[in-house]
């Protein structure tokens, strides 16, 4: 890693070294030998990508077209792993439990609509749930199940994206906040604490700080911040066979629980209120967890576009300026990286992406 102190020219500058920025950098670097720089105000994993549940989750994503995008992304994971290395991706299958009979109706409707895009969902009875996942609470009424869901190790994922991109000669500048962006002709000047970079194409991948990046260039990025707190147990003997909505067991035996939703800005300080609610949920889903020790909790700030769907693509009216910001970026990073790199290098994409354009908010 060289430290960059003076103005330098690049073909592409990506602001944000989270899972989204890095996936784009990696996929782009695989396609051709452009000169690429990734800038981050801190270090990879310091943003949302380092404080995530990291499910690669598909089957409950609606509308179906969004489910389909998630499906494509999870189908890319095995190929990605072959290229960048073992990111501990496991297609465990996913169970989303429900606790009332009315919910079974909704579950059946979901299965029907997702089938149209090729997402195969089974609606399980109580007994079927308990047969699949014997440690689940007998209070469960049923669950939707799909074999496509799974999870990944987010730390490994981001580290290996970075290493693969570095190998393809992508430059990185860490601990270097971008403080302003200036449009110059068809290109951009990126002002950072460590210097100015000139670039032909600029990609905003700032996660929760997307609004701030937008403001540098007079754009309103319609996203909100939603904090989530997650509990982690000590490593336990194998307890869960599947990725369960709200709970998963990692490779090393630790169980991760919860996904609270709190709109408190950038504040990442957890609260005992939510930690206790989460523990309560853990025990009501999987009673055996009552005996587990909780070693820590963490909290992360999700960036959630106002309509819940990803925002990515070129920004209309701003030539060569791109954005990619979304929730569920772990699930989506392979497909976003693929589509964005196609768009950036050829202007075309192998799937239609218009409905994800920021212009839908205009």
């Amino acid at each position, binding site marked *: 890693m060289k430290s960059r102190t003076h103005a330098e020219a690049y073909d592409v500058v990506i602001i944000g070294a989270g899972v989204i920025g890095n996936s784009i950098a990696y996929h782009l670097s695989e396609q051709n030998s452009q000169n690429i720089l990734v800038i981050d105000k801190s270090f990879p994993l310091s943003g949302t990508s380092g404080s995530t549940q990291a499910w690669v989750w598909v089957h409950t994503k609606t509308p179906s077209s969004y489910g389909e995008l998630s499906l494509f992304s999870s189908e890319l994971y095995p190929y990605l792993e072959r290229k960048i290395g073992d990111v501990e991706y496991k297609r465990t299958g996913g169970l989303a439990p*429900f606790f009332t009979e009315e919910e079974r109706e909704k579950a059946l409707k979901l299965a029907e609509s997702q089938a149209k895009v090729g997402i195969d969902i089974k609606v399980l009875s109580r007994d079927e749930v308990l047969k699949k996942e014997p440690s689940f609470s007998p209070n469960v009424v049923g669950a939707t199940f799909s074999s496509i869901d799974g999870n990944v190790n987010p730390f490994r994922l981001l580290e290996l994206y970075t290493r693969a991109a570095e190998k393809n000669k992508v430059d990185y500048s860490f601990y270097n906040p971008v403080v302003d962006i200036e449009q110059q002709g068809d290109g951009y000047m990126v002002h950072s604490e460590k210097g100015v970079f000139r670039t032909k194409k600029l990609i905003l991948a700032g996660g929760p700080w997307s609004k701030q990046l937008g403001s540098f260039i007079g754009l309103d990025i319609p996203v909100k911040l939603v904090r989530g707190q997650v509990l982690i147990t*000590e490593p336990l003997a194998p307890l869960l066979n599947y990725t369960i909505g709200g709970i998963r067991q990692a490779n090393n035996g630790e169980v991760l629980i919860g996904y609270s939703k*709190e709109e408190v800005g950038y504040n990442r300080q957890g609260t005992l209120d939510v930690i206790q609610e989460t523990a309560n949920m853990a025990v009501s889903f999987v009673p055996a967890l009552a005996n587990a020790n909780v070693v820590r909790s963490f909290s992360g700030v999700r960036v959630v576009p106002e309509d819940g769907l990803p925002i990515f693509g070129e920004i209309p009216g701003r030539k060569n300026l791109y954005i990619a910001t979304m929730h569920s970026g772990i699930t989506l990073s392979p497909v976003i990286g693929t589509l964005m790199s196609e768009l950036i290098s050829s202007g075309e994409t192998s799937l239609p992406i218009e409905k994800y354009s920021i212009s839908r908010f205009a």
Partner: protein
Amino acid sequence: MDKSTIVCRCEEINVDEIETVLKMGAETFDDVKRITRCGMGPCQAKMCVKHVSNLISEYTGKPLAEIPPARARMPLKITRMRVLAGTESHASTVKAVFEEGDPDEK
């Protein structure tokens, strides 16, 4: 001290693994922790944070005063789930997945 000397006992992370992350440009304990898992073990970094800070200081040439301490996380001490869960049933911020249609929301 050689490269294979263990720094984090709980997660068995050695000097070499930490130096690899320092080479990437890590500057804080939490940077090192997320990539190596150093500090995520049962002692929650009590035994290794100082050693890692020393390694960061040596590698980057920064004084210890510029290397922030590890972030504190609740529960401050290991706590049994049953005790945390208490008896109240769970409230609004934590929702059953299915109720929302999406585990991480939409």
